């Protein structure tokens, strides 16, 4: 073996088989510790993510500027002089008219603000309650955590739509009631998630280091746990919003959500079901349904990209 040792320094590396290769070197070069991880890849939306982002931005724009861009008022009739129920799309009413002769395009535009507004408000409430209590349970003693979790389990065992129906039927339907009901119902799901994430962070060494230092519970929650829990919770916020949109739309579809004559996507689907019966036009039903679908699928596509970026499973990318 030692005969290969005579290979001239700096020989071509290709000759490794049995040979000895030494890279050219400079005696003065010091070998510093190397940085560990390569830089993270830049965040880029995939094609599907871009499609999703387009829909989300589109609907947010519509929700905010709805009244400015709608061709008619929410309850205005495009053809006030005619008997014009379930008109097919035509100039003057680009998506046709609904069961009460109103312009569907304008009602979808107005409904966007209401559907998205109610859902976002409800999700924010769900997150506020769920995160505060969930992380609170995670840092509490096992007994307190046990009590809080079992009470939460009881809430979770109730079917969401049924619970919503009961509350709205008892208190009466209004937008604040709708927001609070959806908020409370989804808070128990957020509680479970926030508790799980909190628990995961609680067992990290840096939290134990803070405890060993003598830090109080408030410091541990606000400085050690929350900054690390925020990212996964924000990712889930988008997903949870989808469920709340579907929930609010379902309640409206059942007639217990947004009340007439106010427009909302779920109630629009129900109001116009008659159009299918008469075979007049499917647009009055399909248009609001498509609005719900494009918004929820759009959010989903964006969330997929974000969660893949923040440590999705390796197997998904292999």
């Amino acid at each position, binding site marked *: *073996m*030692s005969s*290969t*040792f005579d290979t001239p*320094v700096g020989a071509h*590396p*290709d000759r*490794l*088989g*049995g*040979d*000895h*290769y*030494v*890279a050219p*070197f400079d*005696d003065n*070069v010091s*070998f510093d*510790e*190397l*940085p*560990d*991880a*390569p*830089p*993270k*890849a*830049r965040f880029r939306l995939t094609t599907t993510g871009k499609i999703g982002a387009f829909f989300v931005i589109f609907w947010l724009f519509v929700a905010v500027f709805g009244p400015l861009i709608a061709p008619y008022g929410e309850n205005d009739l495009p053809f006030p002089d005619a008997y014009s129920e379930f008109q097919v799309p035509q100039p003057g009413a680009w998506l046709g008219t609904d069961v009460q002769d109103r312009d569907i395009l304008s009602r979808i535009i107005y409904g966007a603000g209401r559907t998205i507004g109610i859902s976002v408000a409800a999700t924010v409430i769900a997150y506020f309650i769920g995160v505060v209590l969930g992380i609170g349970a995670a840092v509490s003693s096992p007994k307190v955590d046990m009590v809080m979790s079992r009470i939460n389990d009881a809430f979770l065992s109730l079917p969401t739509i049924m619970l919503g129906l009961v509350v709205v039927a008892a208190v009466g339907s209004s937008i604040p009631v709708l927001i609070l009901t959806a908020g409370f119902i989804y808070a128990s799901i957020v509680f479970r998630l926030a508790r799980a994430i909190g628990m995961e962070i609680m067992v*990290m*060494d*840096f939290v*134990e*280091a803070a*405890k*060993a*230092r*003598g*830090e109080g519970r408030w410091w541990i929650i606000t*400085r*050690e746990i929350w*900054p*690390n829990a925020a990212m996964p919770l924000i990712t889930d916020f988008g997903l949870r919003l989808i469920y709340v949109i579907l929930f609010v739309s379902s309640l409206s579809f059942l007639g217990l959500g947004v009340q007439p004559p106010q427009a909302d996507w779920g109630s629009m689907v129900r109001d116009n079901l008659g159009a299918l019966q008469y075979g007049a036009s499917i647009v009055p039903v399909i248009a609001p349904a498509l609005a719900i679908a494009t918004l929820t699928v759009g959010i989903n596509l964006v969330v997929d990209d974000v969660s893949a970026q923040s440590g999705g499973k*390796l197997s998904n*990318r*292999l």
Partner: protein
Amino acid sequence: MAQQTDRTGDDIVFEARDLRIGAVREDGSELPIVKGVNFKVRRGEVVALIGESGSGKTTISLSALGYCKPGLSFTGGEAILLGENLTNKTTDELRPSRGINVAYLAQSAAATFNPSIRINEQVTESPVLHGTKTQAEADEKALALYHALELPNPETIGQRYPHQVSGGQLQRLMAAMALCGDPDLLVLDEPTTALDVTTQIEVLKAFKKVIKEEGAAAIYVTHDLSVVAQIADHIVVLYSGEVEEAGPTDVIINHPQHPYTKRLMAAIKPLPEAGQGEVSSDEHLRDDAALAAVGINAGYGGIGPNGEANIPVLRDINVAIERGKTVGIIGESGCGKSTLARVFAGLLPQTGGDILLHGDTLPRAVTDRSREQLQKVQFVYQMADTALNPRQRIRDIIGRPLEFYMGLRGKAKRARVEGLLEMVELPVQFADRYPHELSGGQKQRINLARALAAEPEIVLCDEVTSALDTIVGANVIDLLTRLRRETGVSFVFISHDLSTVSSFADEIVVLYAGRVAEQGSTDSVLSPPYHPYTKLLISSVPETRIGWLEEATETSEARSGISGTVQLTEKGCPFFERCPLAIAGTCDEIAPPRRRDNAGHIIECHRELSELG
């Protein structure tokens, strides 16, 4: 295409030809990670890629699977497996060859196995899935591999779940999983780094045997030259994505030429022997010990009716840490080393005995200790990755103890943070960085700086160098030695690595299954009489010498003791099962007596000190 043999007629399984891999930075510019690497792997040959973390060794090894880690991509050259270049293939084109032509063995077997599926099903999954073997053929192959890997109960081990076998066994089962599909090339990524020295021997031996028998080629990735010396035919030394030196193992180990290879060799710790440790000065000594444990009992699983833990771990531990001195605590995983450190820190209240700080009893639980008491005992965690909050800047991480214990704010705090960074030999600009922007060694320095910021009297170091590369770990030990000399801080240094402890500690405590096996000054522990367990540990420390593995596995300690696992026992000596000197009927029934010579050297064993050569 089918260029399976080169001009000399050798059977080349894999070849990297001017291989280049890069990442794209935030601003769109390219950052090269692998900068033109050449090497060949022939059939029946093990080629080791060696280098520090960040040298690109894992990235290069993954190219044999045609895979780049997220954010990286092939930017040039070829990775040729069985005559086919992999760098331009899609995942779908690569899938048929993975698991059949090439198999990958990850560092952690525990993370590789699915905990809820029986072992045999997972071992045989790949060839059955790829359709190269029927289930019966795969089962037969798996059984042959279990025998070849010298696993206990080879006929039935496949029916167990992953948590029912030991870590070393799982590591070998992972090799069976990789080899079940008869791959042409095996990629092993640090497969023994996370193991205890005793387990490492058994796994290395099995790997070496089975690679030879199967006639597979292998790429072995590691930072540990002593491991490489045992298993590799060729060594490729990497630094910063470039080959610095490459050649047969004998040449690289015995006649290194390149300054970087020489430096790697120099960073290898000397074997544990009496008289090699650096003697710390006595100038900081006082009457009472800085920290002392008196008759400590502790454990997990809640406290039972007798006032002891339901799962007792530590039993009757007595240690005194004098000021300015270092006590090393050593043992395999599961021996209670970290448990003891957690008792010292108050994170696990003991069920019996007392912790004394300057002779005063400390409250058991951390929540009952005063801020002054907490300040004096600081804990440094093993994994800097999880010990530093990823969302805090270095300035805040180091600054918090200053603010919390000393009330420093504003300019005074900033100046002190910079002073501490200088103390651990890091540039002051690091203050504004986040932990993930630092390397493993740098993070460990920050970890240390945070403990030192509290101006403690005792620092508890739990395996602080175990996760680090040889060179980086050696640098951290140098730093600790300097700090001990300059500050008079006492250290409790916990490690499973006897060579590290013996070069740094004044006193050594050898723990086995929660009991003290041997305890005394470093020199007395490392010279006869030995506890049989100490002897096993000493003989298991790998030497950077070709042929050491074969010699080591022939010693009587190794034959009886290596393949065991640490088990807590109710009665008798816990080391009974693995002890070459065990006395049946005595050692398994009666707790061993504590024997001491006049120099304060303690051995717990039924054998007389004169019998323990």
